[in-house]
């Protein structure tokens, strides 16, 4: 029986079973979290049809585990853990299928190779320069306190926003800003020209200025 969207687990009713903890029904949990779960899978590159299947599977597991949900801190953590485990199982299955292999024509493969011989030299030079800059940056970061270093790494390597860094490190946004400000001062003198190419400022902050 379909319950309104393709991703609703089979067998559940809108009234649902009542949670043993609190007064929440399965239907309330589904209504609150279904979109978040679907976009959780979608952000990780899962095709839309599979996203719906995984969302349905997630809530089917939630439905079956309503009686044991009290062992979890929150409904959020329960739904999150279920969805993450399903996602990882899916990735594992994909890797298994890849190892099975499939036949490829060698002629087609060689014929379709791009002719980029002329571009290889500048690309190699750029790669060496980047490696050198990276080495300098790593050395500079090692002199920072662990908290400051993590702030810079999250900002530079993962391009996270201040707000997101604050969530990851469980600190306030003001602390993140203060850390990055101090780091700027330290790296400026140490890295010179290379520092000017580092982007420590938040995208939102840039937009405001």
């Amino acid at each position, binding site marked *: 029986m379909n319950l*309104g969207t393709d991703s609703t687990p089979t067998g559940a009713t809108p009234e649902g079973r009542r949670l043993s903890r609190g007064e929440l029904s399965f239907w309330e949990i589904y209504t609150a979290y279904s979109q*978040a779960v679907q976009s959780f899978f979608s952000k990780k590159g899962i095709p839309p049809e599979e996203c719906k299947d995984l969302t349905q599977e997630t809530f089917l597991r939630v439905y079956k585990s309503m009686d044991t949900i009290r062992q979890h801190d929150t409904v959020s953590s329960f739904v999150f853990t279920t969805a993450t485990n399903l996602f990882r199982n899916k990735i594992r299955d994909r890797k298994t299928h890849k190892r099975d292999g499939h036949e490829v024509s060698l002629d087609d493969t060689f014929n379709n190779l791009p002719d980029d011989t002329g571009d290889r030299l500048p690309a190699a030079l750029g790669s060496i320069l980047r490696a050198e800059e990276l080495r300098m940056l790593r050395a500079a970061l090692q002199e920072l306190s662990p908290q400051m270093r993590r702030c810079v790494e999250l900002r530079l390597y993962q391009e996270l926003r201040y707000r997101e860094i604050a969530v990851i490190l469980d600190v306030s946004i003001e602390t993140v800003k203060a850390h990055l400000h101090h780091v700027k001062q330290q790296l400026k003198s140490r890295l010179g020209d290379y520092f000017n190419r580092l982007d420590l400022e938040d995208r939102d902050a840039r937009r405001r200025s």
Partner: protein
Amino acid sequence: MTPVIHSRSRHAEPEELVAYRAKRLGDDEVERLRDHLALCPECTELLLDLASFEEIEPRLGVTPVTPDREMVEDYAALMAVAEPRAANGEVETGEIETGMTDGEAVYLPLPWTRTILPWAVVALMAVVAIGSWVQTSRLRQTARESGQNFPIYAYGEPAVSRGEGAASQDVVLVIPLLPAIQPESFPTYELEIRDLQSQGKVVEGFTGLVPNNTSQLAVRLDRELLDYKRYRFDLYGRKDDGSREYLKLQPPRM
């Protein structure tokens, strides 16, 4: 430019991330996990996902049970089926309807005639009732404040006759006395006429002997007194010991 460095430590388990958010990890575990997160985009993304899930938690139990509003087309299709049925009285509004189209559910809000109108009618009736009660209370209060006398305003035209020997400008006012007062109880009477348009000021007073077996009292008044449009008669009986008692005047039986 964005240099890329991949963490070489193992990925965090979802339960570990939940424990980190719940501050249940030890200091060493927190340091190790943070070091990993700083260099692992996958685990960082997972932790941000968990944080976004947690933002939903406070809304649980508050959110009305409705179909997924993001599925606008599905919802519009449901409403297209539900509304005509509600209009025909086939389904109740204001409740979650199920089983209309292969198990879908839809929430139909109550029409204003079933939500606002009944309360408006009740409120109007309450206002009228309260207004009436206030008005009555004011009248009773006015009566109480007027010397504990029961006011008699107008129970028909007082009988007016021109008695023999009366001055041309005088009239005789006949006031019904029900029940009749007896001279054994009150040898003398006192009658006060109060002008109700001048805060009940006494405009005329009479004192006399109570006649035997009479059911009416006749007093001679100045003709001008009849110009007062509203006046009240207060009758008192005075005993031998000098005490005075208010005697309630009653309207004549028609």
